[in-house]
């Protein structure tokens, strides 16, 4: 019960996501597994060890492993498309570029956050050939694309993927054009939930970011 206020605090910073939920479940499980006769100091050390191992293996090493695996699918001459900015897709692209593969990237972006701009900046700095389009141009460029790389927020028990808004659209367009869609997702984001649409559980942003009606538009 002691950790409840901390969890509430985290939930207040940012609504509890699937990955956050899984991590908290993991911690609670480890706490429950501590034998009652163990000394407090020792128990704390053990728990800290578990937490660090989780962070190291399930998050950091996982990213490395996924990047390596995805790299094997990137061929010379590929045209990769990605949506917004996913750290694992960014890592894969940079690793592939450093390995000397020759390919180019099309970044699809959307309002209001324009997260793709950040990815664009980072990739261009590394020397990757990039193009930048908004979501409405996605079908226009799709015929040049050879693979779509997406990140994920969560993967559900029925294989459905929850990701940044717009991913479903990109994936559908890709399917229509016979372009393979590869989703990169660490296993700590896997959820035993089943969701068949996007309404039932979601996070909302600030509507004013999209259309601000407060001041005079003229």
């Amino acid at each position, binding site marked *: 019960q002691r950790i409840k206020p901390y969890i509430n605090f985290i939930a207040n910073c940012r609504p509890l996501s699937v990955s956050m939920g899984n991590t908290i479940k993991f911690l609670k499980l480890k706490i429950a597994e501590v034998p009652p006769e163990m000394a407090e100091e020792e128990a704390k050390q053990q728990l800290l060890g578990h937490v660090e191992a989780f962070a190291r293996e399930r998050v950091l090493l996982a990213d490395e492993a996924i990047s390596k695996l995805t790299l*094997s*699918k990137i*061929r*010379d*001459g*590929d*045209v990769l498309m990605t949506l917004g900015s996913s750290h694992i897709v960014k890592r894969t692209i940079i690793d592939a570029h450093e390995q000397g593969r*020759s*390919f*180019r990237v099309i970044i699809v972006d959307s309002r209001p956050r324009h997260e793709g701009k950040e990815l664009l900046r980072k990739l261009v700095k590394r020397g990757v*050939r990039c193009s930048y389009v908004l979501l409405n141009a996605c079908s226009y460029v799709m*015929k*040049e*694309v*050879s*693979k779509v790389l997406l990140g994920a927020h969560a993967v559900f028990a029925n294989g459905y993927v929850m990701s940044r808004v717009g991913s479903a659209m990109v994936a559908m367009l890709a399917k229509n054009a*016979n372009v*393979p869609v*590869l989703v990169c997702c660490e296993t700590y984001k896997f959820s035993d939930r089943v969701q068949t649409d996007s309404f039932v559980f979601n996070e909302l942003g600030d509507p004013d970011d999209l259309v601000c009606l407060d001041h005079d538009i003229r």
Partner: protein
Amino acid sequence: YTLCGHGVMMGPAATACASNEAMAAALEFFRRSVKETSDLAMALAAIRASIKYIEDTKATTMMELRDDLTALVGLLSQSVEFSIQVASGCDLFMRFVTRAAIDVPDFEACKKLLTTRGNKLVEEFRASRNKIAKLGQPFIRDGAVVLTHSLSRVVLCALRRAAADKKRFSVFVAESRQDGAGVEMAEQLRADGIAVTVVADSAIAYVMEAVDLVLVGAEGVVENGGIINKVGTFQMAIVAHTLKKPFYVLVESFKFIRYYPLNQYDLPSGSRTRRSSPAATPSSSVHSSTTNLAATATATATTTGGEHAPRAMPQLSLPVGLSAGAPLEAGGLRSGRCDAVLRESVNVPSVVTEASPTGDVAAQRKIVDVDMIAPLVDYTPPAYITLLFTDLGILTPSAVSDELIKLYY
């Protein structure tokens, strides 16, 4: 996994290892096995060669043995055209080697265990062909018309068994250029008294209406349940799917590979396009065999009726060339997919010779400098496959990944 991913890059290391006597002996053993026992699947020959190496090796630790075996597999893969089988079979064996190493720490005892169990593995795999043939029997009913592609020993085994059970059925075999392996399959079937007709590759859609089921073998089965097989299989699968005919694959479990192709041009290395050498015998044997079969086909009783025998195939000397097309740019607005096909090809000028339709050899036209691609294998996605008959049972394509996980873990 590295064996199937990008192949094992073995250049300089291979030559160093080949100087190792035991390894050279194993390689020689492999070559001989493949040549002499045409009945033996290549993967089994590779495993046998690995076992022989284990028996002869002067290695003293497990790590050394494992590294040597990996190098040996690389050598074997390089010495054959289709190395997927070699890679997949040996991958399974290597898993087994690793597990044995953990279970039995004493090196000599481990070696002995590896050889005995390895031989048992080979025996199990050998028996798999018969198991599969048995599983397929209820699907070949009396009066059935079977369509098959190229030469598959497993399909041959199944059909022979059906014939031995006194079932009446007839077979169409696609000729499967460029090496005309389908003709050889037809000859083997005919030797067993099975009613068989060779079908031109382009006539597969033409005969499909009359067919009851399609049976093919496979070079490899990939993670999503799709198969890699002689080129033309995918075409056959699409036509069968459109005309609602069941498409069955007969394949042994040691051909399951841990690979997921994204499209036709994303196949494991060791399975790609290679040009057929013009000096090889196939062109002459195709000609002679087809004329024989064309003659006998008219006399063969088929239950389809109304099917006339295929005409004698025009003699086609092996087209050699594959084109490289324009220099590839990674950029530009051109689709990367066109490049993907051309990139895999090798630039060799080709000469295509064509006989006139009447088969008159004297009236040959010579077309020079026409580029041509002639891949050896293609990938059939799981959506077009009805069932896979394996020694692990009859599987739907979606069950393959489950079985793969069980096999490898």
